[in-house]
């Protein structure tokens, strides 16, 4: 065991560099943003053995239902015209299976709205009798088909047990034809920047996960629910209490931190004192995750919750777009990450935290109060996750009960990639995972992009289980 002061040197330097790069990027503002929404939806057309449906929900870039848009569905069963209703939903029946072309009449779009991906109009939909096929037309700035804004869709009626659609997984499939838009430099730049935004928000959420693992050895499967908590508290603050976003966000982060403190005080500390084993604790976190997810659903329902309903303004930087909101989010993320890096590197408590993370027994022997550090890690880890949740909720355009659960595996991928238990590893890993998720859009359908990150997770474990920044040691 090398003394921790020297083991820190190289990750520290790398992390500081990263923090610098991040802030530089943020100030340059070469970033991307989500715009527009799309929803898979239930319908007026009811699918039965002799009828298939083509359905969709149209929403303006601001998320309001787009009313009165005419859609023509043309195919083997003849031609049908549908008009979107007051909730933006439309549906058309087809009595024969086959390929149908779905066209939005752009002249009927609401004032000032454009299709985000005009190349996808008309689009082809395969209709099977007895099922509904979705055809989504996201509105917003034309992005060349690149930046599919990850937008949560409302609860999927067809799934049972209250399973909703998942934020980030159910994206507007503007480029779902397998990246048919072609890989251009503009798209690459757009996706790379989207990846950096997503990665830096993911980093906020992952640091706690990594440090909790480092200091206690616990793989916390309920960490995603801390992220959701942040998003939902911000939603309550803005939408229910009518607070300004900044106040609501700060309050959400504070309360998330308090929840971490309470959790460690009343759950994990007693469990550690009882000497409940790590595997048992891991399963306890799963029970906690289930209980929390359904508690959120109990109070807030399974649909997506929009923290702000204002139409985000886009700013153009050369070939790429970013919304005001995402730009602010990423600046906040960069500042906070730099702060965390400073705390871990330059303060006594931060050094003690890394010492505990490195080797709790040795740290205790050198006079560090391990339990106090763990309490601190829980509190700050949960607060950072809460902040990640608030910003992620803004970035994804909405939050929902399973936002954190969906992100959890990406966080695990990030911390495993960076090296479990190292704070800076979580940062590096998150950025890589963010880039992979967004860049994989270029070659695989956007609704499979989370799968790409998970494949990487498995590959890392195959070839470098200690991660990028982890120390090589026998694992297992």
């Amino acid at each position: 065991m090398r003394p921790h002061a020297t083991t820190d040197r190289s990750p520290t330097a790398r992390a500081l560099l990263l923090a610098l790069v991040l802030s530089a990027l943020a100030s340059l503002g070469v970033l991307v943003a989500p715009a527009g929404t799309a929803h898979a939806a239930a319908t007026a057309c009811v699918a039965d053995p002799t009828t298939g449906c083509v359905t969709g929900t149209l929403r303006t870039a601001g998320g309001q239902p787009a009313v009165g848009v005419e859609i023509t569905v043309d195919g083997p069963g003849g031609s049908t015209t549908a008009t979107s209703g007051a909730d933006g939903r439309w549906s058309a029946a087809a009595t024969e299976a086959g390929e149908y072309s779905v066209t939005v009449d752009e002249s009927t779009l609401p004032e000032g709205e454009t299709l985000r991906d005009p190349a996808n109009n008309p689009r082809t939909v395969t209709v099977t009798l007895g099922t509904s096929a979705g055809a989504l037309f996201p509105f917003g700035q034309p992005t060349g088909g690149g930046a599919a804004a990850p937008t949560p869709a409302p609860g999927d009626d067809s799934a049972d047990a209250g399973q909703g659609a998942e934020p980030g997984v159910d994206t507007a499939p503007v480029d779902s034809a397998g990246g048919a838009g072609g890989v251009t430099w503009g798209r690459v730049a757009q996706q790379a920047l989207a990846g950096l935004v997503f990665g830096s928000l993911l980093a906020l959420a992952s640091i706690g996960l990594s440090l909790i693992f480092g200091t206690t050895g616990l793989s916390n499967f309920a960490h995603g629910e801390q992220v959701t908590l942040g998003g939902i508290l911000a939603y309550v603050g803005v939408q229910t209490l009518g607070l300004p976003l900044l106040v609501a966000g700060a309050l959400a982060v504070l309360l998330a931190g308090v929840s971490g403190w309470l959790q460690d005080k009343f759950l994990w500390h007693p469990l550690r004192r009882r000497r409940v084993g790590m595997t048992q604790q891991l399963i306890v976190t799963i029970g906690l995750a289930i209980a929390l997810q359904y508690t959120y659903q109990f109070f807030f329902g399974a649909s997506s919750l929009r923290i702000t309903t204002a139409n985000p303004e886009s700013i153009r930087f050369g070939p790429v777009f970013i919304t005001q909101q995402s730009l602010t989010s990423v600046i906040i993320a960069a500042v906070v990450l730099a702060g965390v890096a400073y705390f871990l590197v330059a303060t006594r408590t931060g050094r003690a935290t890394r010492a505990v993370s490195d080797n709790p027994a040795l740290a205790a022997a050198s006079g560090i109060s391990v339990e106090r550090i763990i309490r601190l890690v829980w509190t700050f880890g949960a607060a950072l996750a809460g902040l990640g949740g608030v910003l992620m909720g803004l970035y994804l355009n909405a939050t929902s009960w399973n936002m954190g659960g969906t992100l959890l595996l990406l966080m695990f991928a990030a911390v495993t990639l960076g090296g479990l238990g190292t704070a800076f590893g979580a940062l590096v890993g998150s950025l890589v995972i963010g880039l992979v998720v967004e860049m994989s859009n270029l070659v695989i359908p956007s609704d499979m992009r989370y799968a790409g990150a998970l494949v990487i997770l498995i590959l890392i474990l195959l070839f470098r289980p200690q991660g990028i920044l982890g120390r090589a040691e026998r694992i297992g």
Partner: protein
Amino acid sequence: MDWTRILTNVAGEIIAPTTAAYALAAIGLNVHFGLTGLLNFGQAGFMLLGAYGFAISTIAGYPIWVALLIAIACAVIFALILGIPTLKLRGDYLAIVTIAAAEIVRIVGRSTAMTGLTGASSGLRGNSYKESFQALSPFPDGTTDVGPLSYSNNASNSWWIRIVGWALVALACLLVWRLMNSPWGRVLKGIREDEDAVRSLGKNVYAYKMQSLVLGGVIGAVAGIVYVLPRAVQPDSMGRPMTFFVWTILLLGGAATVFGPVLGSMIFWAALMLIKTVMRSAVPPDIMRTEQIEQFGWIVVGVTLMLLVIFRPQGMLGDKKELAINVR
């Protein structure tokens, strides 16, 4: 409160095909966790693959036995892919990899790019693959009443699927019982307790773990088929929550026991049904809406899992000395 109806519902739930499917899945997980100490958090992935393998090959026109073999082959390949990188690593790595792999299966299956094969997120309709299974039924068409329970003989949620499902559960129990008392099973238990000791006896720990992963996964795939036969293949209904419920069932009944998973599944679903039906008639809708009662049931499941693991990790039937839940 109508207790006859409530108790009928609960009794129906005890023998429901879903209960049998979860019992089978838990038996598979028991081979992984109870016998070998492998932390498999991707059991739903095995189930979903089994369901896809069976449904897709039946839709493609293969007879039921071929479809079954394809489902099993899917599970075997999946287990090998999972096992090769992770079985040499620490337990929690296997947990993360299996849960990630199961998610990959689900995300790919529900992707719009796969609509032609898997039906994307709306899934595959039950009627498109049930035919060959229902054709095997020896019963005449119609419905049969047994006491207050009334189901059709063959169609969808039938007596036929119940009989086959529980017969498979019985078969799997028999298999696990024999294996537990075989030299092979003793090596597995040895691995669970102390891997290095078994290795020092000259056993190939890696190979044994792999065999266990494959066997439990195959049982999981069969469970997936039983699960989807009365309904449709819905990738989103077979995600992480399903894996976690299988874990709850296993730990409730007692890991490393023969009947623990079966008892656990029966109690899990019966208790859930009891909570839901009692609350539906007892709690006025302005206090808790119907879907909130549903969610309340799942909150109880989560809390139960936490309390169970902390206070009674051996479950109802387990022996605390037998099972050291902490794997390395």
